[in-house]
């Protein structure tokens, strides 16, 4: 769900504005109770997505699972309250998700991270180090393929013993090997004189 290729007008708006607008719109949507207004908003949202040349293929899976949840919600709400209410709630939820995905699909990953850093910068005052946080995030990304491989190996090895579906048999080796990787990496970083406390030398 990375919006690396979107070049539309939405992609050019700063992520802070998009996210802020999303928050405001979400709250606003809760104050609207007319299905007619919600229906027009949702049509506008779809138009928005279309004009932003959003990659609809990426939306297929999330929309599908959302549709399943929405049908259950619709039936439950209709039976418990009334059908107008059910329509309103479903339209509202669908609009919120569409708008949220429109932000996701038109904002690059790096821009999103920058947004989170801005949002988190007040945390500096309770001792969080923003450089450390940025490092942690990129380190995590770097480790994901490696740990995925470890997980796969552990599952296959346990599968050979008939324990492939036993969460305990799979978790213990995974955790132990992950900790080993962590210790080795930390040692290697320190051996190179890496000072994580500051970037200025």
């Amino acid at each position, binding site marked *: 769900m990375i919006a690396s290729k979107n070049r539309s007008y939405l992609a050019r708006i700063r992520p802070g504005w998009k996210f802020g607008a999303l928050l405001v719109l979400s709250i606003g949507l809760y104050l609207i109770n007319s299905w007619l207004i919600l229906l027009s908003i949702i049509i506008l949202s779809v138009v928005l997505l279309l004009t932003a040349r959003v990659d609809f293929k990426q939306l297929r899976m999330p929309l599908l699972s959302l549709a399943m949840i929405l049908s259950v919600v619709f039936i439950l709400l209709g039976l418990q309250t009334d059908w107008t209410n059910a329509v309103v709630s479903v339209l509202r939820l669908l609009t919120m998700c569409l708008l949220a995905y429109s932000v996701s699909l038109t904002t690059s990953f790096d821009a999103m991270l920058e947004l*989170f850093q801005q949002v988190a910068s007040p945390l500096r005052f309770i001792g969080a180090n923003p450089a450390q946080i940025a490092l942690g995030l990129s380190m995590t990304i770097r480790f994901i393929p490696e740990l995925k491989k470890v997980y796969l190996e552990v599952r296959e090895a346990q599968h050979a013993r008939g324990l492939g579906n036993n*969460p305990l048999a799979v978790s213990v080796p995974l955790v132990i090997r992950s900790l080993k990787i962590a210790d080795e990496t930390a040692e290697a970083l320190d051996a190179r004189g890496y000072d994580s406390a500051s970037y200025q030398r």
Partner: protein
Amino acid sequence: MSINTASTSQTRNTVYVAVFAAMIAAMGLLPPITLGIIPVPITLQTLGVMLAGALLGPWRGALASSVVVILSLAGLPLLAGGRGGLGILFGPTGGYLVGWIFGSLVIGALFKYWVLRNENKTVRFITGLFSVLVGGVAVIYLFGVPWTAVVTGLDLRTSLIGSLGFLPGDILKAVVTTLVALTVHHSYRGLMK
């Protein structure tokens, strides 16, 4: 050659957080596990979240969960099923993500200041299991269920009943977490100071 112990432990902490966050992500990337006793296949991802708290302590554990949440919301398909993006936060299951962070925090705190203070294995298991159930199930559901209710318009009771389908799997994960955490703490003394 002098060793700067402050940066050494800070490096170690950052690496631990990163590795555990990556582990939680990896747990969501592979297909779920099908057990005979539970009809729904379970992913180990929530187990990873609980383990992060139980093994790394409150702050590092919560950070590890936060990293996974941040990266997923930023767009990486790290959540079970290859899901990601802001739509998750604004959708019915958004509360559970926030709950992960507090769940790891609570489990970590309970383990660090209570569970690991006991040396007796049985006491450790009972207190540990209780802590994981409180932090890994109760706290996470505490954030997830009301969020679902608010977002979908369903009342709390219905949202709660809807979430009960996941309860057996989550309780099993709590048991596994306790066993794994206590096993690892036994071999890795000083993992949580």
